[in-house]
């Protein structure tokens, strides 16, 4: 009898906590999303009227920012994958004695606040930094092209900030590959590229899936990079939710947008995991 009860007793405190501070808030969010302002609407008070067209209004009004969030997040995720895969490969298979040290180096930038690093990028890429004048001298960019306040800067910032989230799961799954499978592939006359395509890459798929999710999800909801590195023309859905909640105090619209963002991401994630065929993620 004790054996059967043990796992539930272990789960109880944690899940009670998650129920109170995660499930209840989400339910409350759903409830807020169909409310309408009381009376004239200037009071900041809302009543439940089950107005589901809040969703339609919120979406139509902000579809540009929604689209931008998903486009930026997708590009940043693909860029991060392209940068992180060779790096994770190098650490896992060529790291040798330096493997642990290199892993520390991957997480080390985390320890300097990501806001400080994002602001640092803003200054490095800004007019007073050294990158813009150099590129202008070489003639890669014209005199009146700027790097900050562009979608380029926002996507670059997101790629940079979420890179460790991509690298670590990739490393974990490449590191787990038995080197003998790679040798076997070579013995069977596969060249380096074929070995990579037919052996290494398929075996590292769990890392690719975990890494892309850990990058895409926070990137799609991010607004800090867009705020610091972007301009009003690069606003993402996170910026809209933030200002609706904290500045405009339009809770129903903010809640409808949040709920839509969450559901869209959950659907994409589910489809993606199905397609990639790795159920065991956590």
């Amino acid at each position, binding site marked *: 009898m004790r054996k059967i009860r043990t796992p539930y007793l272990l789960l109880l405190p944690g899940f009670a906590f998650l129920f109170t501070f995660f499930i209840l808030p989400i339910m409350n969010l759903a409830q807020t999303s169909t409310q309408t302002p009381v009376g004239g609407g200037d009071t900041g008070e809302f009543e439940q009227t089950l107005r589901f067209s809040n969703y339609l209004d919120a979406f139509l009004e902000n579809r540009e920012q929604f689209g931008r969030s998903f486009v930026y997040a997708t590009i940043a995720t693909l860029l991060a994958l392209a940068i992180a895969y060779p*790096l994770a490969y190098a650490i896992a298979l060529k790291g040798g004695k330096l493997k642990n040290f290199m892993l*520390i*180096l991957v997480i080390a930038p*985390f320890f*300097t606040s990501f806001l400080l690093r994002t602001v640092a990028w803003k*200054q490095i890429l800004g007019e007073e930094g050294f990158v813009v004048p150099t590129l202008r001298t070489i003639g890669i960019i014209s005199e009146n092209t700027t790097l900050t306040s562009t979608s380029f800067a926002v996507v670059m910032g997101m790629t940079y900030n979420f890179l460790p989230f991509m690298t670590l799961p990739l490393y974990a799954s490449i590191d787990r590959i038995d080197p003998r499978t790679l040798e076997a592939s070579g013995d069977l006359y596969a060249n380096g590229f074929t070995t990579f395509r037919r052996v290494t890459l398929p075996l590292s798929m769990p890392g690719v899936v975990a890494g892309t999710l850990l990058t895409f999800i926070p990137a799609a909801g991010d607004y800090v990079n867009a705020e610091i590195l972007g301009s009003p023309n690069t606003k993402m859905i996170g910026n809209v939710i933030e200002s609706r909640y904290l500045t405009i105090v339009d809770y129903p619209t903010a809640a409808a947008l949040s709920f839509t963002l969450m559901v869209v991401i*959950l659907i994409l994630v589910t489809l993606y995991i199905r397609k990639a065929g790795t159920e065991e993620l956590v």
Partner: protein
Amino acid sequence: MNHKVKDATIPHIPTGARISRWIGRNLIRIYAVFAFTYLFIPVAYTFAFSFNDSGKSNLIWKGFTLDNWQNPCGAPEVCTALVNSVKIGFLATLFSTILGTMIAFAIGRYSFKGRSTSNLMIFLPMATPEIVLGASLLSLFLVFQINPGFWPTVMAHVVFCISFVVVTVKARIASLDPRLEQAAMDLYANERETFRRVTLPLVAPGIAAAALLAFSLSFDDYIITNFNSGTLKTFPEFVYASAARGIPAQANVIGSAMFFLALAIVITGQIVGRKRKVSA
């Protein structure tokens, strides 16, 4: 593997070809150096500008000074914000590590009805964007008329830290050799003794890594904090608020100091771990 032998058997390779072969063989290593450089450019920038004799706005290099390091609390509010962040980080780490480790043991060690639902429950907070977590918690606090501030922020941080703790500790539990525990049982250790003397010490590095991860996630969080902290200011909030008019160099000092401190902790942990492995 046999580079040397190959080079010895083919002696007439021109230098240019040798160099390009060396590059070909080490391409991935050269790439790694570039990737790490990219990762560290803003860290180096932050460190360099912590020595800037900048006055109020730390935007342009004005000259070298040690003043900022000698007086890291010189800028208004910066140390209050730091203390807030450390307190919140400590409490959030404590709670999330305890709750998360218990969940990890339940999921990693037992098969029971509802196990896959439990996995889903851990995955959901990770699949929810921070802004949704932050906004939904704020609306709950508003319904119950709880003012945003210190404790709401701690609770919010525990929510997103738990999942990362569970995943980290679970991975460690999964990598344990079950024969070690069987051996303990064979040597007449009861369940409790086996857990305390064998299982827990073996899982401990995983728990330590999870705690470190939780602390750095909490310490660095801006989005969820911004929704739930009210008038309280954490270090990331301080940086964000001052970003527009230039961040005081003291913030760079604190960011750099945190970097070296955490690096020292991690490297010490690695060395201690290696020594224990050697002596064991």
